[in-house]
């Protein structure tokens, strides 16, 4: 017994020492001790759910605390018996084996007691299950579409109806990841266009996807709903506090799965109204006219931006591709005399969406700009200029 105690003690000591070592190692390895909790996102050494800002998330938290209590009680009782037995009923202390091996009473008891606990658990959880499923009477309905690897948001109904944008991980952060220079409190959680919603309003999120299954998840809201291609699902939340809230795609969706965060900004009602107004103005101003005829210079400049924001993730900024991703530099499709070869590839994608179909996700102008850029960059010198009208023509085919 002493051996076991000593071993157990030693083992615990070793575990603690190693944990301590690891924790110190963190700071040194990162050379950045400034990481702190991200409000509305993960916390340093967080041991619990993120702070709840919806009623549902609060209920989940309470259910979890309840379960922790139940489990702790069972743990103490069951393993109290076990360790008492391990200490007392051992041969080395001269304990003789008893000879019982059945007891209907005890067996019925320890079948019934867990059964009752389980019924109580079921009863406790049912209300929340039903509440989570009630997506009726929403004030604002937003469609969240999962793309490899970004989220598209469309304001379908309610204040802000008609707005729509794509929300992508900050490209600088993706590069930090690639260069192994992770830094910042919102590392991998910052997006170019966060989803903006009003506080204290019931927001219904309709999820779907364009290619593979993604999952729209914001822990602080207690929301996680798969976005399934070809199908529409919904979920809801009612945020009770303004602020920034973060989540990450929660269904493996391919190589950039770690890089499609969800960032929700909750604004007060007047701020939200103001935001909607600016967005509508910007939307009108930014609309590209596909009939416009472009010169090479501005189109190349535009194309570089589009390329870096959308294509460089896979094809790399130098156009060399990586692994299964085809290089664009010196690519026969890019250098094809018939501009339609590349236009059609970009519009419709290839290999079941491994190369995504960009039709509808980028405007004709953006597609034309990106293609023109690839045709005249690196070692590609086709001199070809693809006008938005060429893309429109290809779309009609």
């Amino acid at each position, binding site marked *: 017994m002493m051996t076991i105690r000593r071993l157990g003690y030693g083992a615990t000591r070793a575990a603690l020492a190693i944990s301590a070592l690891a924790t110190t190692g963190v700071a040194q390895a990162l050379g950045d001790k400034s990481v702190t909790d991200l409000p509305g996102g993960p916390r*340093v050494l967080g041991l619990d759910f993120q702070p709840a800002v919806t009623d549902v998330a609060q209920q989940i938290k309470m259910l979890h605390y309840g379960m922790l209590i139940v489990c702790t009680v069972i743990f103490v009782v069951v393993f109290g018996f076990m360790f008492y037995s391990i200490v007392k009923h051992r041969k080395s202390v001269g304990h003789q084996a008893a000879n019982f091996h059945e007891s209907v009473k005890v067996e019925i008891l320890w079948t019934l007691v867990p059964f009752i606990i389980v019924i109580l658990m*079921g009863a406790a959880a049912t209300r929340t299950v039903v509440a989570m499923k009630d997506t009726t009477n929403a004030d604002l309905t937003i469609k969240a579409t999962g793309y490899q690897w970004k989220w598209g948001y469309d304001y379908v109904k309610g204040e802000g109806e008609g707005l729509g944008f794509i929300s992508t991980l900050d490209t600088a952060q993706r590069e930090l990841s690639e260069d192994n220079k992770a830094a910042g409190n919102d590392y991998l959680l910052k997006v170019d266009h966060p989803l903006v919603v009003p506080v204290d309003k019931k927001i219904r999120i309709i999820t779907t996807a364009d290619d593979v299954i993604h999952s729209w998840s914001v822990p602080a809201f207690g929301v996680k709903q798969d976005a399934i291609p070809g199908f529409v699902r919904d979920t809801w939340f009612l945020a009770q506090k303004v602020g920034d809230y973060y989540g990450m795609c929660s*269904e493996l969706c391919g190589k950039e799965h770690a890089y499609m965060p969800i960032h929700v900004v909750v604004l007060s009602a007047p701020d939200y109204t103001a935001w909607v107004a600016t967005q509508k103005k910007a939307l009108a101003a930014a609309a590209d006219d596909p009939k416009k005829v472009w010169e090479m210079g501005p189109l190349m400049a535009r194309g570089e931006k589009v390329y870096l924001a959308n294509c460089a993730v896979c094809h790399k900024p130098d156009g060399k591709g990586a692994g299964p991703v085809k290089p664009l530099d010196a690519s026969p499709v890019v250098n094809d005399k018939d501009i339609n070869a590349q236009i059609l590839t970009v519009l419709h994608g290839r290999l079941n969406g491994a190369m995504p179909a960009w039709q509808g996700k980028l405007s004709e102008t953006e597609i034309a700009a990106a293609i023109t850029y690839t045709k005249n960059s690196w070692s590609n010198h086709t001199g070809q200029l693809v006008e938005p009208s060429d893309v429109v023509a290809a779309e009609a085919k």
Partner: protein
Amino acid sequence: MSAVLPHPVAPGHDHDHDHDHDHAHGQPHGWRRWLFATNHKDIGTMYLVFAFTMFLIGGTLALLIRLELFQPGLQYFNPELFNQFTTMHGLIMVFGAIMPAFVGFANWMIPMQIGAADMAFARMNNLSFWLLIPAALMLASGFFLPGGAPAAGWTLYAPLTLQMGASMDSSIFALHLMGASSIMGSINIIVTILNMRAPGMTLMKMPMFCWTWLITAYLLIAVMPVLAGAITMTLTDRHFHTSFFNPAGGGDPVMYQHIFWFFGHPEVYIMILPAFGIVSQVVPAFARKRLFGYTSMVYATSSIAILSFIVWAHHMYTTGMPVTGQLFFMYATMLISVPTGVKVFNWLATMWRGSMTFEAPMLWAVGFIFVFTMGGFTGLICSMAPIDIQLQDTYYVVAHFHYVLVAGSLFGMFSGFYYWSPKWTGVMYNELRGKIHFWTSLVFFNLTFFPMHFLGLAGMPRRVADYPMQFTDFNQVASIGGLCFGLSQVYFLLFIVIPVMRGKGEPAPQRPWEGAEGLEWEVPSPAPWHTYETPPKLDRTATKVIG
């Protein structure tokens, strides 16, 4: 009269790699002995060696995963390769390590435990093992095919599988072969148990390991074809323009998940029930007291098996199912904890007022009960649909299923290895080394996986190659724990397995454990190549050979 053939080899002499065994039947030698093997013990050995090899490969992949996750940022692998590692780690561990290892235990022990001469279908037994080799090669070859290994997760969810390269197809064929192998193994086990028990060995006197395997074998026959169906549909979606799961043609990706988990949930119990059986034999042996509630153990195991068919959608709450569906699967899932609890209580009652000693098999069994139950607690927590939705696809789930699969299945197998290896090899393993293996594994297992609960609660998704900075600390602890856990298993291989396989150690007596009961302890150690060639005459309890 003992029905056992005299063994030509002196105890303590290497059995497994010995070519100088019984010549009576002119059995083949050298590589032919293994390639044409029909002897259940030889085939059992091959299964165990194969499974341990796959375990080391899968473990290496796990360590590569932990290496990349040691720090935020990408250090060693691009995200695509990382996804290949997680996928292959899962596939190799489930189909290459755990399942074949238990079949290896079944091959070795079931005929000896029920007093049968061999498995019912000796040649099919050979085939079911040798199918695993091309299957494993095809699975592992994925890394060398264009585009690399499959990277869609071991669950192979559509439509992500449609984007994979050629390795997806080779993996699907590999799974088909492994499934065929499992089905053949199961048929063999069922027929052996139902038809070849020695006279007097009634079903309700059978050792618990045989019982749990009998039930497991039925589960396997029921669900392996379901998996085969799902992956075949994936294959035709990929190549023959069907649209079972491809939404572009009107298919339903969620249907794939339903079919997969209809296989997948019973699969979870396929991987744990035989471990329950091992523990149910080890605990009484070292408590020197009969198993408490044998009958209720059998019924509890059967209930778990039956319930396992009606809980599959608890893996899918976040796909969005109707509220009634969610409630049904939640209640059914919670119910499983009742028979599982009964099993734990029965083990404790067996220990209670026993006369316990703590040799390595018992340490592993007690470790199993302790740590597996923690996995049970997190299972109970996850059974509540609202909590599960919050935890779905986070590291909490990773922690949960490693608590039940590593601390459950693997610890159970280690317990079985230490318990039965004297019978297999004829030598005792080194007790101190066995204890070192246990304590290091227990500590480092917890160091690896316990922090993952916190990561999951805090919101870290699984299957990500990089993560926000706030998750760094616990990931580092987990990586260090993982490395040490892996080294413990290398220690096990080098200092325990290889020595006993080479016959180094104290010669093992016929019954090395004072309290061990059962027919496997009625034959010498190492077990002769053929045992119970004629049915033995058993005593009333069917644990001893008389006459």
